[in-house]
């Protein structure tokens, strides 16, 4: 029986070390080809005719002029007259032409008339939402009425966090190409295995006729799981034209129609004892993610407050569709909750760190882990020395403040299959229809296979990004690392077991008594009885070893689990004359179970912190009620942080027996949850008043200070 469990710490040569990502050189040198870079023989460019109205019914469509334009090979109506459009920028007609600009010209030549319908694109004032507001049933736990009447301190606040987009660097899109009745799809996707099924269903072709390939993806963040209208219609258009068609969204379309993170607004009341013990929570929240409204984020976040009352209203709007955004609903819930807790601490004139530690038992099964992380973070950021009561009272217009937040996420492994092949020449491959979102999935697969086989990482050829390989789950919900590391470990362990059987007679040993280490196969405890990996593989003759590993595979134990704890602390300075916030330092202390690659794990957290700075200070999908349009669908006014805006980022990875015992857990989402709350809390600590909304823009800072009575 092969050894499936993870090796113990002292026996790991690669797992948990800091290993550079395998595709790094390819990416930084520009050699890596993304879908956006691909060109297929005879390929046409597809462009959408987009509806300029936020809510409208298609009245008529005239494509005759477009069809006669130079270079135009196909024109297809995708939303017939009578169709109701729910957001500006939705595609109505798609055209394909030999050059991109010819396709643009042809799209402009399509005449569409609309019956314009009333729209709503602003949700901050719930009283204006009318019947678009859809209240959910009240949720109550414990006895909140009694708890508030007995509370020694009650703190109240109103908070909001804006709709933002995913703003993928590589926009959404794909090439669709027919070979007879077989369809090749080259998408920019988070789901190489899953996306093919949508083409099968929509086009009515057998699953065996769809092949999906993708080497690299320029960001997805939860918005790239589906084939999407542009994918399915692209395939139909390619069929119609008899040539491959590439459709990649333009930057404005990317920001308008390819998904948004729902907003959250909330009036929150918290009750506590004078000593800081939290006793009660009440929230009235609302938000929108587009026509589907928005569900209630998980309030109160992380803290299991004994007495709670929650009401939530989803607001249906015409802002474009919501899509899962890295840690769906958590950043909103975290910002609302951790802001309210910090405001409670300020009302009590207590240190929020002290409040958190005092109430640590409300954090459930990982309470002690949170406690350990809080203390670690406090040490790194010098909380005790730097923290002050709300409002920096030192002279000058630059005020300094500290804030903290905490978060969780599941990150259970997705289903995955891996095929490991050991060839007679000694080469090894691992194949999965998975994808590397830039997180280091390739590297993780190679590390696990190499560790298991006792080989250096360079010895493993990782093949992913092709649906011809064994199926593996979509990369969402931080599920990939657990899934692919489990399936790869099992496949490699079974393959090793097979090679042990082949070489055991030559080493005069029982196969069960062999081990692989240092590119050798040897008798356990007797390194003198060994042969090199090459020698061992040459004994395979002409027959490679192939082994398949699966996740889940209960008979082979469990290598991954779910549920992590993390804390973050922010140090900011605020220019109280201009309202401009600068990040000085962000500290992330993160638990993720057993770490496969410490370096890519750190990178993952750096990326999350930067993304967090963006939504804390800059990002907002700004909608105009009069026109129903997004006003900032570009990279000038849809603001993102640059290198000078992110401050010093410090990452501390939690490691040790507790982490090892829980196996591998996903990391993608958790570290992006807390930055908004930690930064907002630090700003409040600096200037002495809560800026109630994210992003924390200069106008909002100055308005909050003016309400408080000003500092300048």
């Amino acid at each position: 029986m092969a050894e499936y469990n993870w090796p113990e710490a002292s026996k790991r040569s690669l797992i948990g070390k800091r290993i550079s990502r395998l595709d790094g050189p390819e990416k930084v040198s520009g050699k890596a080809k993304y879908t956006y870079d691909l060109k297929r023989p005879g390929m046409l460019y597809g462009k959408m005719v987009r509806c300029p109205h936020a809510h409208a019914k298609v009245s008529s469509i005239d494509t005759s002029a477009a069809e006669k334009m130079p270079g135009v090979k196909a024109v297809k109506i995708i939303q017939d007259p009578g169709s109701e459009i729910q957001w500006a920028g939705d595609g109505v007609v798609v055209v394909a032409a030999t050059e991109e600009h010819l396709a643009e010209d042809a799209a402009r030549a399509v005449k569409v008339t609309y019956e314009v319908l009333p729209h709503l694109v602003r949700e901050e004032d719930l009283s204006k939402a009318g019947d678009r507001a859809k209240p959910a049933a009240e949720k109550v736990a414990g006895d909140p009425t009694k708890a508030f009447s007995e509370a020694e301190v009650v703190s109240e606040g109103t908070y909001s966090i804006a709709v933002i987009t995913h703003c993928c660097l590589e926009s959404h899109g794909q090439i669709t190409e027919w070979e007879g009745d077989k369809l090749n799809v080259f998408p920019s996707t988070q789901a190489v295995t899953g996306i093919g099924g949508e083409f099968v269903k929509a086009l009515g072709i057998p699953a065996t006729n769809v092949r999906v390939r993708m080497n690299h993806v320029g960001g997805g963040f939860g918005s790239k799981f589906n084939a999407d209208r542009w994918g399915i219609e692209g395939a139909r258009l390619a069929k119609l034209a008899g040539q491959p068609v590439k459709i990649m969204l333009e930057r404005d379309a990317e920001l308008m129609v390819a998904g948004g993170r729902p907003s959250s607004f909330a009036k929150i009341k918290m009750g506590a004892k004078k000593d800081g013990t939290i006793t009660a929570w009440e929230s009235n929240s609302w938000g929108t993610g587009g026509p589907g409204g928005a569900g209630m984020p998980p309030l109160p976040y992380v803290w299991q407050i004994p007495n709670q009352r929650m009401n939530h209203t989803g607001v249906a709007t015409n802002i474009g569709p919501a899509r899962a955004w890295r840690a769906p609903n958590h950043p909103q819930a975290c910002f609302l909750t951790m802001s309210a807790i910090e405001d409670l601490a300020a009302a009590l004139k207590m240190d929020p760190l002290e409040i958190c530690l005092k109430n640590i038992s409300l954090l459930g099964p990982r309470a002690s882990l949170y406690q350990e992380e809080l203390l670690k973070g406090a040490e790194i950021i010098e909380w005790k020395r730097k923290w002050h009561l709300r409002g920096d009272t030192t002279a000058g217009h630059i005020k300094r403040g500290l804030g903290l937040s905490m978060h969780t996420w599941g990150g259970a492994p997705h289903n995955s299959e891996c095929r490991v092949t050991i060839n007679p020449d000694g080469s090894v491959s691992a194949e999965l229809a998975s994808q590397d979102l830039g997180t280091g999935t390739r590297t993780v697969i190679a590390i696990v296979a190499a560790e298991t086989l006792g080989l250096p990482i360079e010895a493993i050829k990782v093949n992913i990004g092709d649906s011809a390989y064994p199926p593996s789950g979509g990369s969402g919900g931080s599920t990939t690392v657990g899934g692919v590391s489990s399936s790869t470990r099992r496949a490699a362990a079974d393959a090793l077991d097979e090679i042990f059987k082949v070489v055991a007679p030559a080493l005069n040993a029982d196969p069960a008594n062999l081990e692989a280490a240092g590119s050798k196969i040897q008798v356990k405890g007797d390194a003198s009885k060994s042969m090199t990996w090459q020698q061992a593989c040459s004994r395979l003759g002409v027959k490679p070893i192939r082994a398949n590993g699966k996740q889940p595979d209960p008979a082979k134990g469990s290598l991954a689990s779910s549920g992590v704890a993390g804390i973050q602390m922010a140090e900011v300075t605020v220019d109280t004359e201009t309202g401009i916030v600068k990040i000085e330092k962000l500290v992330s202390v993160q638990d993720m179970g057993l770490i496969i690659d410490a370096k890519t794990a750190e990178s993952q957290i750096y990326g999350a912190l930067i993304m967090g700075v963006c939504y804390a200070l800059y990002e907002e999908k700004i909608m105009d009620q009069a026109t129903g349009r997004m006003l900032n669908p570009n990279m000038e006014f849809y603001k993102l942080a640059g290198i000078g805006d992110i401050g010093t980022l410090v990452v501390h990875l939690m490691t040790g027996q507790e982490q090892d015992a829980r196996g591998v857990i996903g990391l993608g989402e958790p570290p992006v949850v807390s930055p908004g709350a930690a930064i907002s809390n630090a700003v409040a600590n600096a200037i002495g008043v809560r800026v109630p909304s994210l992003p924390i823009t200069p106008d909002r800072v100055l308005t909050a200070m003016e309400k408080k009575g000003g500092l300048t």
Partner: protein
Amino acid sequence: MRAFEYASPTTKEQAVALLNNQWGETEVLAGGMDLLSLMKDDVTRPGRVINIKEIKELHGLQYSPSTGLRIGALVTLQELLENETVRKEYPSLAQAAEGVTSPQIRDLGTVGGDLCQRPRCWYFRGGFGLLAQDSSGKSLVLEGENKYHAILGNSGPAYFVNPSSLAPALIALGAKIRLFGPKGARDVAAGQFFVTPKTNQEREYALKTNEIVTELLVPPTGGARNATYEVRQKEALDWPLAAAAVSLKMSGKNVTSARIVLGHVAPVPWPVPDAEKFLAGKTVSEQVAQDTGGAAVTGAKRLSQNGYKVQLARVAVKRAILRAAEGGA
């Protein structure tokens, strides 16, 4: 992007002969940092694009202590800010160029382009016209999203802000802008170059449809200390929320006369004579600088979302004065 005719003249005479008498029919291409975006977004749809980069005399930068600085219209923002004379004599120009936070724009964008770039108003860029009006002619700005719009000179119908980074400093320094057209060259004071359009068909500058900017002429400072301060939210690519350029004639710490011009707060760069008078004769201190800032915004009119820009303009003036007074010249 629509198909267009492309011309690449080598003399300014050829260039202006290729221009015609209607805005938008032809567009001038220098660095292309703004024009290409406008064309890609289908905001500008020229039938002819005239590349002026092959006109040699529009390049180059010369300085003489007696006549001052001559900046060819095609000098890039990066060339300007790296020039030692500019840094020493005209720090307000170098600081303004540094405020253009995209290295790509600094490297390719020209001083002429900085003056002639179109407003960054998101209604204009979104295809709602220069004056951002709905089909009935009502302003979309007044009841819409106006946090980046004008706080001065905003009696309408234009509410956008002038986007030029260099203009406030050029005006404060008393620069002239030399234009060339079919009738030859003419000079306009930098302060007269910008105009507030009354219709969607007009432009925001005093160029005629068949003229181009050829050079900027900045007089000697006469020892005036000058500085620019921009309030910008981000370090990385971002447009200023408010800016001020000042040029101070000083005797010791005492200001004998001042030129103060605001940027990004009105449809044109906005000189503030009341603030200039207030500062003249005073000794620079934090308080005096702050009060001068206050005097600069007394005429400001807040729209529904942009009241904070009044404070930012005030601070920009204060910090520009302090920066100028600290720096030598």
